[in-house]
């Protein structure tokens, strides 16, 4: 594959990453959110593999394999199992309607493009175009966390942010050193397991997975009687 074809592939994968971030914000059903999240994992693995090919960095192949197994398969499966056990197949409940969320998402993308511009100009890597997209995906994941009422979609937003950070690492640095990547992946896995445990605790105590139901118990702690 020629260098320009590799570059085009990376650009295409970056555009698809951005699409998955938007799609995560637009979904109404929990299962389709999980499917898009798994698609994100696959895209990450593909990007890592392409960059590994383009830069002849064999450590990155291992990262790609980890991304595929962990983020493309294991995490979505874990979350799906939790969702099935908790029987939360139903709707995702957003805080504001989907059109407004989309418009804010577009604004966020423009903003991240603007702030990353000076950094992009310095980079000489083939992946530099994807840096702005990676930053946008990080901020979009955070937007997802803020605008959701259910605990599970908050967690998926958090994991989407971690995905985008991995993407940013590949895009801006052609991959962090393997030790660090392994450590980060390990942390994400433990976090997901703890989240899973948490959902059951929350469900048993509160009988619902709405975050507002939990916050009620903390709000009154500050007022003077």
């Amino acid at each position: 594959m020629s260098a320009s074809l590799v570059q085009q592939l990376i650009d295409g994968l970056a555009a698809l990453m951005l699409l998955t971030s938007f799609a995560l914000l637009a979904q109404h059903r929990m299962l389709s959110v999980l499917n898009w999240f798994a698609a994100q994992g696959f895209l990450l693995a593909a990007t890592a593999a392409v960059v590994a090919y383009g830069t002849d960095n064999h450590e990155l192949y291992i990262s790609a394999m980890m991304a595929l197994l962990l983020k493309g398969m294991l995490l979505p499966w874990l979350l799906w199992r939790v969702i099935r056990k908790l029987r939360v197949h139903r709707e995702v409940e957003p805080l504001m309607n989907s059109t407004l969320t989309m418009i804010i998402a577009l604004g966020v993308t423009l903003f991240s493009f603007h702030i990353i511009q000076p950094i992009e100009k310095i980079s000489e890597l083939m992946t530099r175009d994807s840096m702005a997209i990676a930053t946008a995906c990080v901020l979009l994941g955070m937007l997802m966390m803020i605008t959701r009422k259910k605990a599970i979609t908050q967690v998926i937003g958090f994991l989407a942010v971690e995905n985008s950070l991995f993407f940013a690492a590949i895009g801006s640095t052609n991959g962090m050193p393997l030790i660090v990547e392994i450590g980060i992946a390990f942390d994400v896995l433990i976090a997901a397991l703890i989240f899973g445990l948490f959902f059951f605790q929350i469900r048993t105590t509160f009988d619902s997975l709405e975050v507002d139901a939990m916050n009620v118990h903390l709000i009154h702690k500050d007022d003077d009687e």
Partner: protein
Amino acid sequence: MNLFLATLLSPLVGGLLLGMINNPRLAARINIATGVSTFTFSLLLAIQVLDTKSVDAIDGWFHLDAYNVFLVALTTFVGMTTTIFSGPYMRHELEGGRLDLPRLRLYHSMFQLFQFGMLLGFTTNNIGVLWVSLELATLATVLLVSLYRTPASIAAAWKYFILCGMGIALALFGTVLVFFTSSAVLGHGNEALNWTALYAHAAELDPAVMSIAFCFLMVGYGTKVGLAPMHAWLPDAHGEGPTPVSAVLSGLLLNLALYALVRCKMLVDGSTGTDMAGHIMMGFGLLSLAVAALSLHKQRDIKRMFSFSSIEHMGLMTFAFGIGTTLSSFAALLHMTVHSLVKSGIFFTVGHAAQAMGTQKMSEIRGLIRHHPGIGWGLLIGTAAIAGFPPFGVFTSEFLLFTAALESYPWTTVPLLLGLLVAMAGLFRFVQPMVYGEVAEQAVQVHVNMLPVYVHFALALALGLAIPGFLAGWYEQAAALIVSGAVSGGGA
């Protein structure tokens, strides 16, 4: 070299072992044993650094210098005393029905794994591994905050998890940006993430990228430090967990986050050559001081009140590091040490007080000094210490901070003083009725072990009166390092 491995493996092995032991007494004993062994190893390590100025280990993966050696020793010391405190305390909780055996097992193993994460973070030479260990320490404590399974504690643990997870993700982005610019200078391998290499080449790192990276690192690690306005998780998390967990969270984890923040500030200063990082830190510090001092007055729960006090002190330390002179850094380092000691001692006392009175609500705790003089005096002395009364160490460090602020930014002494006074007023306003007055009806006698508390307060007193020579030497060296943005080479 072996000492590094020993110090790290001790809590790791202990944690894994404790995950399998069901008997509460045996578990408590093994917990204490692990704490003691970790402390011993770290003491030996510290002595080694005393001889050789700085130690690198295992191909430069670990690095001890004047800045982190005393923090390592502090962590293991407070960890040890907490294990001593937690034995009978958790047994009382178990008997009271707030816990069951599986959860106690989780508590013990997670406690040691938390220690492991902390030590890994302090001793590592790699900025990426520092991130990983900070996240690891957070994850170990998340389940501990919700240990009692009350609605409030689960809500608190969730808030803690999400907010700190968010902060840490931002810090990771900052780390990626640092790697982005350092890999251009140092190549794509692990070398580009090592503190030693980074500091040596700080001037060659791109200032624009480092500035943007610092913004992310400041907000990210600042969330973990508990700086306003990212502090919303702290009162809940520190207030709802069991007392030993609150003690280590307030006393130790915040230190690790601040340590990471200051290491990054050193790097950014070396790269940009401006005071931007320092000014940002000062701003956050003052804001935290103000928010904490004012919020203190609105609290009803004793642990929440003292956790706001932690926010206030972390704000002070951040402010001090932000000023960036040798004197202010010295003050901040001293403050880190005494705050850990005093705050954990206070939390131990508060834990006993809550057990004795059966509640954490300050309006219902009364007459501690009559009911159990040890607890009463402990709380009174502890509050005096943390509020900055002489001759305790907090007074010394705050005085030094004032001097430093007066030298460099005189107008900041006014908000500083105001904040400290408001906080002191808040603390005493609540503590005085709790300590004096008629004993509340529901008070019970509890088995109280005040020895760790007195040891902590005595150390804080000693540090206030006469700092030992070697410690002062370390503080000076560390302050010099922080100001100059460099790290001492191996065996220099």
